[in-house]
Protein backbone atom coordinates (compact mmCIF):
# COMPACT_ATOMS: atom_id res chain seq x y z
CA UNK A 1 0.00 0.00 0.00
CA UNK A 2 1.31 3.52 -0.78
CA UNK A 3 2.35 5.74 2.08
CA UNK A 4 1.20 9.22 3.12
CA UNK A 5 2.17 11.63 5.92
CA UNK A 6 0.69 14.68 7.63
CA UNK A 7 2.92 17.66 8.44
CA UNK A 8 1.17 18.08 11.77
CA UNK A 9 3.11 21.07 13.19
CA UNK A 10 1.87 22.96 10.11
CA UNK A 11 -1.78 22.21 10.88
CA UNK A 12 -3.68 25.44 11.36
CA UNK A 13 -6.99 25.70 13.19
CA UNK A 14 -9.83 27.99 12.14
CA UNK A 15 -7.78 29.99 9.66
CA UNK A 16 -9.48 32.00 6.97
CA UNK A 17 -8.03 31.00 3.63
CA UNK A 18 -8.60 32.30 0.14
CA UNK A 19 -6.93 30.36 -2.65
CA UNK A 20 -7.42 28.28 -5.79
CA UNK A 21 -8.65 24.68 -5.95
CA UNK A 22 -6.91 21.96 -7.99
CA UNK A 23 -9.05 22.92 -11.00
CA UNK A 24 -8.12 26.60 -10.51
CA UNK A 25 -11.53 27.49 -9.09
CA UNK A 26 -11.13 30.26 -6.49
CA UNK A 27 -12.56 29.55 -3.05
CA UNK A 28 -12.41 31.03 0.42
CA UNK A 29 -13.56 29.67 3.77
CA UNK A 30 -12.74 29.29 7.46
CA UNK A 31 -10.86 26.01 7.63
CA UNK A 32 -8.52 23.57 9.28
CA UNK A 33 -5.34 23.62 7.20
CA UNK A 34 -3.97 20.04 7.06
CA UNK A 35 -0.89 19.57 4.85
CA UNK A 36 -0.89 16.13 3.21
CA UNK A 37 2.59 14.94 2.21
CA UNK A 38 2.98 12.15 -0.35
CA UNK A 39 6.52 10.75 -0.57
CA UNK A 40 8.01 11.06 -4.03
CA UNK A 41 8.72 7.35 -3.86
CA UNK A 42 5.01 6.65 -3.38
CA UNK A 43 3.60 9.06 -5.97
CA UNK A 44 3.69 6.52 -8.79
CA UNK A 45 1.82 3.96 -6.75
CA UNK A 46 -0.83 6.50 -5.77
CA UNK A 47 -1.32 7.65 -9.35
CA UNK A 48 -1.53 4.07 -10.60
CA UNK A 49 -4.24 3.39 -8.05
CA UNK A 50 -6.42 6.31 -9.21
CA UNK A 51 -8.52 6.66 -12.36
CA UNK A 52 -10.31 10.03 -12.28
CA UNK A 53 -12.73 8.79 -14.94
CA UNK A 54 -13.99 6.02 -12.67
CA UNK A 55 -16.38 6.94 -9.87
CA UNK A 56 -15.24 3.88 -7.89
CA UNK A 57 -11.56 4.82 -7.98
CA UNK A 58 -9.49 4.57 -5.89
CA UNK A 59 -10.35 1.34 -4.17
CA UNK A 60 -11.82 1.88 -0.73
CA UNK A 61 -8.89 0.32 1.06
CA UNK A 62 -6.45 2.55 -0.81
CA UNK A 63 -8.44 5.74 -0.38
CA UNK A 64 -8.87 4.98 3.29
CA UNK A 65 -5.12 5.46 3.83
CA UNK A 66 -5.35 9.15 2.96
CA UNK A 67 -8.75 9.54 4.57
CA UNK A 68 -7.60 8.15 7.90
CA UNK A 69 -4.41 10.23 7.90
CA UNK A 70 -6.36 13.42 7.26
CA UNK A 71 -9.11 12.54 9.73
CA UNK A 72 -6.62 11.62 12.46
CA UNK A 73 -5.05 15.06 12.06
CA UNK A 74 -8.46 16.75 12.02
CA UNK A 75 -9.53 14.89 15.13
CA UNK A 76 -6.36 15.80 17.01
CA UNK A 77 -6.55 19.45 15.93
CA UNK A 78 -10.26 19.74 16.68
CA UNK A 79 -9.87 18.22 20.13
CA UNK A 80 -6.73 20.16 21.07
CA UNK A 81 -7.26 22.46 24.07
CA UNK A 82 -6.77 25.58 21.95
CA UNK A 83 -8.23 24.06 18.79
Amino acid at each position, binding site marked *: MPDVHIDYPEVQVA*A*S*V*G*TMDTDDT*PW*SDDVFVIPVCIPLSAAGEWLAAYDPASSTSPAAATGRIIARAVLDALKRAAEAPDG
Partner: protein
Amino acid sequence: MASPIFYPASPTDMGGGAAAGGGADLSALGFVEVDLTDGFTLTDPDNLVDTTTNVANVNKVTFTALAVGSTDYSWGSGNNQRAPRWVKSLTAPDGDGAEQQIQSGDTFILQTVVQFETPDNRYAAEVVVASSVDGTGTDCFTNDAMGGLIRYNASGNIQYGIFTFNGYNSLGNASNDRGVCTVLHSGARGQGGAYINLDSSGGAITGGSRNASMDYTDGTTDMKLMIGVGTNGSATITAGDDAQFRAWYRVVRFSLPS
Protein backbone atom coordinates in the same frame (compact mmCIF):
# COMPACT_ATOMS: atom_id res chain seq x y z
CA MET B 1 3.85 38.10 27.47
CA ALA B 2 6.13 39.82 25.01
CA SER B 3 7.26 43.37 25.59
CA PRO B 4 5.19 45.98 23.77
CA ILE B 5 6.66 46.63 20.36
CA PHE B 6 8.04 50.03 19.42
CA TYR B 7 6.20 52.20 16.94
CA PRO B 8 7.81 55.42 15.76
CA ALA B 9 6.05 58.69 16.42
CA SER B 10 7.11 60.19 13.13
CA PRO B 11 6.22 58.79 9.68
CA THR B 12 9.80 59.24 8.57
CA ASP B 13 11.49 58.26 11.80
CA MET B 14 14.01 55.48 11.28
CA GLY B 15 13.58 54.52 14.91
CA GLY B 16 16.34 53.99 17.43
CA GLY B 17 19.56 55.94 17.59
CA ALA B 18 22.26 56.39 15.02
CA ALA B 19 24.65 53.49 14.55
CA ALA B 20 28.34 54.09 15.20
CA GLY B 21 29.13 54.03 11.49
CA GLY B 22 26.12 56.14 10.49
CA GLY B 23 22.77 54.93 9.22
CA ALA B 24 20.03 53.19 11.12
CA ASP B 25 20.30 51.34 14.38
CA LEU B 26 19.43 47.79 13.37
CA SER B 27 18.61 46.88 16.95
CA ALA B 28 15.66 49.29 17.01
CA LEU B 29 14.62 49.90 13.44
CA GLY B 30 11.39 51.82 13.15
CA PHE B 31 8.74 51.98 10.45
CA VAL B 32 7.58 54.40 7.78
CA GLU B 33 3.93 55.35 8.24
CA VAL B 34 1.68 55.11 5.19
CA ASP B 35 -0.07 58.32 4.15
CA LEU B 36 -2.13 57.68 1.02
CA THR B 37 -2.24 61.41 0.30
CA ASP B 38 1.54 61.78 0.22
CA GLY B 39 3.60 60.42 -2.66
CA PHE B 40 1.25 57.70 -3.87
CA THR B 41 -0.44 57.45 -7.27
CA LEU B 42 -3.96 56.03 -7.31
CA THR B 43 -4.95 53.44 -9.88
CA ASP B 44 -8.72 52.84 -9.75
CA PRO B 45 -9.80 50.76 -12.77
CA ASP B 46 -13.55 51.06 -12.11
CA ASN B 47 -13.72 54.48 -10.44
CA LEU B 48 -14.72 53.24 -6.99
CA VAL B 49 -12.90 55.85 -4.93
CA ASP B 50 -14.79 59.00 -4.02
CA THR B 51 -12.31 60.64 -1.63
CA THR B 52 -9.02 59.82 0.10
CA THR B 53 -7.92 61.57 3.28
CA ASN B 54 -5.31 61.21 5.98
CA VAL B 55 -6.10 62.80 9.33
CA ALA B 56 -3.95 62.12 12.39
CA ASN B 57 -2.23 59.35 10.41
CA VAL B 58 -5.49 57.50 9.77
CA ASN B 59 -6.08 56.80 6.09
CA LYS B 60 -9.74 57.03 5.09
CA VAL B 61 -11.03 55.90 1.72
CA THR B 62 -14.65 56.74 0.91
CA PHE B 63 -16.26 54.85 -1.93
CA THR B 64 -18.82 55.32 -4.64
CA ALA B 65 -21.42 52.57 -5.02
CA LEU B 66 -20.50 49.04 -6.03
CA ALA B 67 -23.95 47.60 -6.54
CA VAL B 68 -22.84 44.25 -7.94
CA GLY B 69 -20.09 42.66 -5.89
CA SER B 70 -17.33 40.60 -7.44
CA THR B 71 -14.20 38.85 -6.25
CA ASP B 72 -12.46 41.01 -8.86
CA TYR B 73 -12.33 43.61 -6.06
CA SER B 74 -10.84 41.21 -3.53
CA TRP B 75 -7.06 40.95 -3.58
CA GLY B 76 -6.96 37.39 -2.34
CA SER B 77 -9.89 35.80 -4.13
CA GLY B 78 -8.98 34.95 -7.69
CA ASN B 79 -6.86 36.12 -10.58
CA ASN B 80 -8.53 39.47 -11.37
CA GLN B 81 -7.44 42.49 -9.30
CA ARG B 82 -9.59 45.52 -10.06
CA ALA B 83 -9.75 47.11 -6.62
CA PRO B 84 -8.33 50.60 -6.10
CA ARG B 85 -4.66 50.71 -5.16
CA TRP B 86 -2.15 53.43 -4.26
CA VAL B 87 1.34 52.84 -5.63
CA LYS B 88 4.78 54.35 -5.07
CA SER B 89 8.35 53.25 -5.64
CA LEU B 90 9.63 50.72 -3.12
CA THR B 91 12.79 52.19 -1.64
CA ALA B 92 15.09 51.83 1.34
CA PRO B 93 17.36 54.55 2.73
CA ASP B 94 21.10 54.09 2.57
CA GLY B 95 23.47 55.10 5.37
CA ASP B 96 23.18 58.74 4.38
CA GLY B 97 19.39 58.66 4.28
CA ALA B 98 19.19 58.73 0.48
CA GLU B 99 16.38 56.51 -0.78
CA GLN B 100 17.55 53.62 -2.94
CA GLN B 101 15.25 51.90 -5.43
CA ILE B 102 14.62 48.23 -4.70
CA GLN B 103 14.68 45.95 -7.74
CA SER B 104 13.07 42.59 -8.35
CA GLY B 105 16.38 40.71 -8.24
CA ASP B 106 17.41 42.11 -4.86
CA THR B 107 17.44 40.20 -1.60
CA PHE B 108 15.11 42.13 0.68
CA ILE B 109 12.29 41.90 3.15
CA LEU B 110 9.19 44.03 3.40
CA GLN B 111 7.98 44.31 6.98
CA THR B 112 4.48 45.68 7.49
CA VAL B 113 2.29 46.63 10.42
CA VAL B 114 -1.43 47.17 9.82
CA GLN B 115 -4.17 48.45 12.09
CA PHE B 116 -7.94 48.65 11.59
CA GLU B 117 -9.64 51.92 12.44
CA THR B 118 -13.40 52.10 12.91
CA PRO B 119 -15.09 53.36 9.72
CA ASP B 120 -17.93 55.86 9.68
CA ASN B 121 -19.93 53.56 7.37
CA ARG B 122 -18.48 50.07 7.52
CA TYR B 123 -18.62 47.64 4.63
CA ALA B 124 -16.88 44.27 4.17
CA ALA B 125 -13.38 45.42 3.26
CA GLU B 126 -9.93 44.10 2.49
CA VAL B 127 -6.71 46.12 2.73
CA VAL B 128 -3.26 44.97 1.57
CA VAL B 129 0.14 46.57 2.13
CA ALA B 130 2.27 44.78 -0.41
CA SER B 131 5.34 44.63 -2.58
CA SER B 132 4.61 44.38 -6.31
CA VAL B 133 6.50 44.35 -9.60
CA ASP B 134 3.81 46.61 -11.08
CA GLY B 135 0.94 47.59 -8.82
CA THR B 136 -1.23 49.01 -11.59
CA GLY B 137 -2.18 45.71 -13.23
CA THR B 138 -5.68 44.27 -13.17
CA ASP B 139 -4.63 40.67 -12.62
CA CYS B 140 -2.38 38.83 -10.21
CA PHE B 141 0.03 37.76 -12.94
CA THR B 142 0.90 41.38 -13.72
CA ASN B 143 1.13 42.54 -10.11
CA ASP B 144 2.99 39.63 -8.45
CA ALA B 145 2.12 41.17 -5.09
CA MET B 146 2.36 40.02 -1.48
CA GLY B 147 2.28 41.61 1.97
CA GLY B 148 0.24 42.31 5.08
CA LEU B 149 -3.54 42.05 5.11
CA ILE B 150 -6.60 43.43 6.93
CA ARG B 151 -9.96 41.89 6.14
CA TYR B 152 -13.35 42.04 7.80
CA ASN B 153 -17.06 41.78 7.19
CA ALA B 154 -19.67 44.47 7.76
CA SER B 155 -19.73 43.29 11.39
CA GLY B 156 -17.68 40.91 13.50
CA ASN B 157 -14.02 40.51 14.38
CA ILE B 158 -11.17 42.02 12.43
CA GLN B 159 -8.80 39.60 10.72
CA TYR B 160 -5.12 40.23 10.10
CA GLY B 161 -2.89 38.02 7.99
CA ILE B 162 -0.89 37.71 4.81
CA PHE B 163 -1.81 38.25 1.16
CA THR B 164 0.17 36.39 -1.52
CA PHE B 165 -0.39 36.61 -5.30
CA ASN B 166 -4.09 35.67 -5.44
CA GLY B 167 -4.70 34.17 -2.01
CA TYR B 168 -4.52 34.86 1.69
CA ASN B 169 -4.29 33.36 5.14
CA SER B 170 -5.76 35.36 8.01
CA LEU B 171 -7.05 34.95 11.54
CA GLY B 172 -9.72 36.86 13.41
CA ASN B 173 -9.90 37.55 17.13
CA ALA B 174 -11.81 40.02 19.27
CA SER B 175 -8.49 41.22 20.72
CA ASN B 176 -6.74 41.76 17.39
CA ASP B 177 -5.10 45.19 17.52
CA ARG B 178 -2.31 45.12 14.94
CA GLY B 179 -1.05 42.66 12.37
CA VAL B 180 2.70 42.27 11.78
CA CYS B 181 3.86 40.60 8.55
CA THR B 182 7.15 39.90 6.77
CA VAL B 183 7.56 38.84 3.14
CA LEU B 184 10.83 37.61 1.59
CA HIS B 185 12.31 38.33 -1.83
CA SER B 186 15.55 37.07 -3.42
CA GLY B 187 16.91 36.12 -6.84
CA ALA B 188 13.93 37.55 -8.74
CA ARG B 189 11.46 35.55 -6.68
CA GLY B 190 8.86 36.49 -4.10
CA GLN B 191 8.51 33.52 -1.82
CA GLY B 192 5.87 34.50 0.73
CA GLY B 193 6.00 35.18 4.42
CA ALA B 194 4.53 34.96 7.85
CA TYR B 195 2.42 37.05 10.19
CA ILE B 196 1.73 37.49 13.89
CA ASN B 197 -1.38 39.19 15.22
CA LEU B 198 -0.93 41.33 18.33
CA ASP B 199 -3.23 42.54 21.07
CA SER B 200 -3.24 46.12 22.34
CA SER B 201 -0.37 45.44 24.75
CA GLY B 202 1.84 44.02 21.99
CA GLY B 203 1.39 40.40 22.99
CA ALA B 204 0.98 37.74 20.32
CA ILE B 205 -2.48 36.25 19.86
CA THR B 206 -1.81 33.95 16.94
CA GLY B 207 -0.14 33.82 13.54
CA GLY B 208 0.33 31.98 10.29
CA SER B 209 2.16 31.87 6.99
CA ARG B 210 1.63 31.47 3.28
CA ASN B 211 3.77 30.82 0.21
CA ALA B 212 3.61 32.98 -2.90
CA SER B 213 6.32 31.24 -4.99
CA MET B 214 6.26 34.03 -7.58
CA ASP B 215 9.10 33.91 -10.11
CA TYR B 216 9.48 37.43 -11.47
CA THR B 217 10.07 37.98 -15.18
CA ASP B 218 13.47 39.53 -14.54
CA GLY B 219 15.66 40.87 -11.77
CA THR B 220 15.84 44.48 -12.94
CA THR B 221 12.27 45.71 -12.48
CA ASP B 222 11.81 48.60 -10.06
CA MET B 223 9.66 47.26 -7.22
CA LYS B 224 6.59 49.11 -5.99
CA LEU B 225 4.81 49.54 -2.69
CA MET B 226 1.12 48.85 -3.29
CA ILE B 227 -1.64 49.76 -0.84
CA GLY B 228 -4.83 48.11 -2.04
CA VAL B 229 -8.30 48.69 -0.62
CA GLY B 230 -11.09 46.47 -1.89
CA THR B 231 -13.87 44.17 -0.80
CA ASN B 232 -13.83 41.08 1.37
CA GLY B 233 -14.86 38.45 -1.17
CA SER B 234 -17.68 39.65 -3.41
CA ALA B 235 -19.16 42.18 -0.99
CA THR B 236 -21.07 45.18 -2.30
CA ILE B 237 -20.46 48.82 -1.35
CA THR B 238 -23.03 51.54 -0.73
CA ALA B 239 -22.04 55.03 -1.82
CA GLY B 240 -20.44 56.73 1.17
CA ASP B 241 -19.11 53.54 2.76
CA ASP B 242 -15.53 53.87 3.91
CA ALA B 243 -12.48 51.94 5.09
CA GLN B 244 -10.07 53.42 7.62
CA PHE B 245 -6.70 52.09 8.67
CA ARG B 246 -3.18 52.88 9.73
CA ALA B 247 -0.24 51.09 8.15
CA TRP B 248 3.53 51.09 8.48
CA TYR B 249 6.28 49.44 6.49
CA ARG B 250 10.02 49.00 6.40
CA VAL B 251 12.12 47.61 3.58
CA VAL B 252 15.53 46.13 4.35
CA ARG B 253 17.81 45.15 1.46
CA PHE B 254 20.75 42.84 2.01
CA SER B 255 24.07 42.29 0.25
CA LEU B 256 24.59 38.57 -0.10
CA PRO B 257 27.98 37.20 1.03
CA SER B 258 30.51 37.04 -1.79
